[in-house]
């Protein structure tokens, strides 16, 4: 999938550009830390995450000369990392997930907290309009809230949500990887999105403005 990594180190490349990126230890270290957080969140295995990050970084830095700067390199390296994560998830197949996925009974309270007995929004749970979501993306505090909300999801919901929205696998692939049915998946994604939405709304978009 990623033929950018097939070339051995330094084939026919001038050294200067790569050298300057490689010399920027602070940038590389912060990039690595961020990638590791991203990979660990999805693979829930520190070793697999380390390996994926390592391979993605090496793959990207091999071609460092084709990047105008750090921002472009970062976009590229995350694209490679996403493919690595997808590969690892596919290889894991059902081994890890079988049996652990559908303990949904404990999550039945999700719906009753949000909807009344007829299935309509509880008054204080009805979604409100979010002001300027695009601007939030530029605020670092928003991303801390987003990560906290993600970590609050039940593990299985978080995993399928990340497979779908971060790694961008389609339903068929996620179901094959996780060993679940499409209707299982739809239920889990629905719940994950309800929870994430609620968390972002309460902790970011209307902080302190809601009636209790």
């Amino acid at each position, binding site marked *: 999938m990623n033929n950018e990594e097939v070339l051995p180190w330094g084939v026919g490349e001038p050294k200067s550009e790569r050298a300057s990126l490689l010399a920027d230890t602070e940038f590389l270290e912060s990039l690595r830390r961020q990638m590791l957080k991203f990979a660990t969140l999805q693979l829930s295995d520190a070793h697999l995450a380390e390996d994926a990050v390592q391979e993605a970084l090496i793959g990207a830095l091999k071609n460092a000369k084709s990047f105008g*700067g750090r921002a472009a390199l*970062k976009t590229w390296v995350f694209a490679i990392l996403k493919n690595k994560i997808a590969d690892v998830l596919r290889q894991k197949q059902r081994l890890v997930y079988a049996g652990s996925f559908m303990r949904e009974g404990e999550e039945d309270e999700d719906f009753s907290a*949000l909807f009344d007995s007829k299935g309509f929004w509880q008054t204080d749970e009805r979604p409100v309009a979010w002001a300027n*979501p695009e601007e939030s993306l530029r605020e670092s505090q928003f991303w801390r809230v987003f990560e906290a909300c993600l970590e609050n999801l039940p593990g299985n919901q978080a995993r399928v949500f990340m497979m779908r929205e971060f790694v961008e696998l389609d339903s068929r692939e996620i179901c094959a990887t996780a060993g679940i049915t499409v209707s299982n*998946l739809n239920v889990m994604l629905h719940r994950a999105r*309800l929870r994430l*939405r609620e968390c972002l*709304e309460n902790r970011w978009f209307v902080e302190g403005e809601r009636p209790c």
Partner: protein
Amino acid sequence: MLNCQEATRLLSESQERTLAWQERLSLKMHLMMCSGCRNFGKQMHTLRQVAHAYAKGEDERTDKTGE
């Protein structure tokens, strides 16, 4: 007639598949009357936008104005 739980389920599923016309019609009817679910629908798009930005590593770029 759909309730909000079913409407949000369809709004969520529309991120994975194209809804059947019957589903689209009943969803449309519900959304005409329900501002909560209209907001939910918009937020599903925002959520995807946010996730894709996060997956590109944009969260830490916010800290560095130079880029």
